[in-house]
């Protein structure tokens, strides 16, 4: 599966990146393709482009706050989970993407 994801936690220092790390690790282990955009204290990193989004099979938001530039994902089916869940149970979260 080709996955794009966004992580964003309240302070933007730690959990944003911890979740990104978990999702990347787990997705690769399960044989998926994944690109994770982080929205944190440094702003948006690893930004998802319009073509990457439209080409994706699934969109995952592991977020506790509003996603910036959410318009980019219009028209796509988004699965949204709290950041903690992506950290604690990345396999389960990816399973939700069907």
């Amino acid at each position: 599966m080709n996955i794009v994801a966004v992580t964003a936690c309240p302070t933007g220092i730690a959990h944003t990146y911890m979740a990104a790390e978990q999702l990347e690790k787990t997705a690769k282990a399960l044989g998926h393709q994944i690109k994770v955009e982080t929205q944190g204290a440094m702003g948006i990193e690893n930004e998802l482009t319009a073509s990457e989004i439209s080409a994706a099979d699934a969109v995952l938001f592991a977020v506790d706050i509003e996603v910036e530039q959410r318009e980019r994902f219009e028209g796509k089916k988004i699965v949204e989970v709290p950041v903690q869940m992506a950290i604690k149970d990345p396999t389960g979260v990816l399973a939700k993407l069907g």
Partner: protein
Amino acid sequence: MSSTDSSGGQEYRFHFPLPNGLHARPASHLQELADHFQSAITLVNERTGYAANAKSVLSLVGADVKTGDPCKMIFSGSDEGLAHNEVTTYLCGDFLRCDEALPPTQELPGSVFIPRSLRKAGLEAHHAGIPLCRGIGWGTVVRIGGLTLPTSLKNEKAGEPAKEEASLRQSIQDVGCALEKKIAASSNQQESEVLKAHLGILHDSEFDTKLRELILEEKLTAGQAIIAAGEHFMALLQNAQSSYLRERVLDIQDICSQLLKSTYGAHPGTEEVTLTQPSIVVAESLTPGQFLSLDRSQLQALVLGHAGATSHAVILARSFGIPTLAGLGTAAALLQAGKEIIVDANRGIVIPEIKEPISSFYRRELSKAGRIREAMSSLSSLETATADGNRLEIAANIASVAEVAPAFESGAEGIGLFRTEMIFMDRDAAPTEEEQANIYTAVVQASAGRSVIIRTVDIGGDKPVSYLGLPPEVNPFLGYRGVRIYKEFASLIKTQLRAILRAAEHGAVRLLVPMVSSVEEVRHVKALITESREELRAVGSSAADACIEFGIMLEVPAVAFQMPNLCEEVDFFSIGTNDLTQYWMAADRDNAKVAPLYNSIHPSFLRLLKTLVDAAHAKGKWIGMCGEMAENATLLPLLIGLGFDELSMAPPRIPAIKAGVRKAKFRECAELAEQVLTSSVAAEVMEHLDRFEKSGESLPIVSPGLVLLHSEAVTKEEAIRELVNVLEIENRTTAPDTLEEEIWNREDTYSTGFGGGFAIPHCKSAHLSANTIAILRCRKEGPGIEWGSLDGAPVHIVILLAIREANSGKEHLKILSTLSRQVMRDEFRDQLRSQDTPEAIAQFITAGLFA
């Protein structure tokens, strides 16, 4: 509701109508009325069951009747019918008008901020006060003053009871007369009400009964009986529910003090206090002499009643770094002698009951303070200069010989101000030349060749001295004080000058003259010095030719436009910023309404400073500062940049200021000063200073000092507190309580324990000097910390990430995001678990982050 009691006598039931309960004032009105009747009149508080004698103010007040309480008045005696009618009429009529709304409560100290860890430690009862000298003291309460007798009188054996009683009667009569005179003379309604209430207590039948009992049955002296009776009734009131009643404790104390004075004369003898264990001294006020007689190795803290920030006892306390709190009001009366308490003069609270885990919290605070002091003192012995080699002397303000050694231990390079007022105060006659010469010589010798600046006496006005007979003034700050009185008291001043010249034979002494406003005054003092030299010559003293430099305080604004003239007459200057700011801004710092105007960073004041410094340097004179502004670390770069040659301050501040000077670069400070002087408002000045502080060289993000292994913490609160403390020790923050709160704000959102025995608390905070990573590791075999983690397991390793609000460099933020990713990897976590020294861990993290 009236009824006739079956056993005879009449009753009247009612609900207490007055808004503030039955306190001393309405009680005295009721008592006055009840006294007219022969019958016994009793007021029963049906809520508590307490039955009070309506003819005794103290008894009535002791009934603790609150507004709305159901009460019953019982009248029993030959005129019970009449008494019943008149009293009930009164209770439904005039009585309702005899009380008024309480005067607005006094300015309370600013609200106290209790950090989470202390709240969680169960801090319930605490008293708030105004911190006058920071620090934490833990010890046993020793009370000075208040209702006490000097030891000799305390143990005195009583004479004939009849004699003691007669003595007491006389005192009661005398005090009563004095009160009546005051009431007659008073034009203030509130004041005369209070005085009447005091009179009521004095003539109170219960009070009287108690005193007689103590003299006749317990065979006490008049003085001992007064104290015992006072304590008895104070204890009664102290348990009252309403704070207003508790405040009446002070009324009783007042009356008893007056009685004691009347019995023994104005000075019943100074009390000698010997501290035998770590102690906290609680007093309404302390004379400098009393303070200095306290064994400082045992004195842990001071709690003072009404001391202002500039009272002499407080100046001394700060000089020795004794934590001091003031303004506790009535709460101070509740601190019992012998009780173990903690004074936290950092947060402005007193903890009257010490229990775990509060005691652990404060043990850690004390240990932290000790480590910070150690770190500071290692830098103390060096001469002070900026990083780019600009010399700036850091000196000490003192007022007694005892302070000299501690001053040099803190790293002072000289005595920048030896205040001599205390030598002249609290005594009946001026100190002799001999006495003064001994003191000044002792200070000079203890300074072992380093410069000592002795300021001639600055008395008058608010620092009165009885034997000079100076009349009280309406406006002492603009009055007859300092150099202004030297003409009239020439002989007094010349005595001091001769003593100073004698001391100058033993070392490097400089003279400093206060409150100078004109060249004439300077010339006059120099003439006095010449005369003093002649007087010494006449007795064959070699001190006649002792070398001393001559300087003046810059505190009267008029000096600003006389500098070239003054430079012709003097060798150096010292700016007294406390008074200069008051005069320049025309605002009394002790007047709450205008205190905010007293602002030493007002752009106009800063330009004044620059004018003074430039003018002095233009004529090759050195210029220093001895006011409180000198000890302010935030303003230090500015003072360096303005070009001061010397800063003199209370010794406890010296290590921090010396460290600050060494870190600074003169060139940058000079640029800062230029910028600051263009500000239009004080807020702009602060912005410049804040920005300057933040732009400082950044500290490394992690260091061995930030790694805590073998932590004993068992709760989240303890762990976070330990981490915040180590940040303070490592100079990453000066606001640990605020930082703690910010970490908790994030932690409260959801737990940062993400499993595997790790937690990663973090925050963004303006109260950090640099981005910081700190690590806390519990003992492996230990239980770990309940963190509410995702996997429910306890945490053994806590990684604190703290970043500054200001956009202070993407590199550091990158480090934190890298660290956050790495901490999800098993190998990384295993390494953190197994590395066994702080150096290894700090190195490991640093290496990993920059990979």
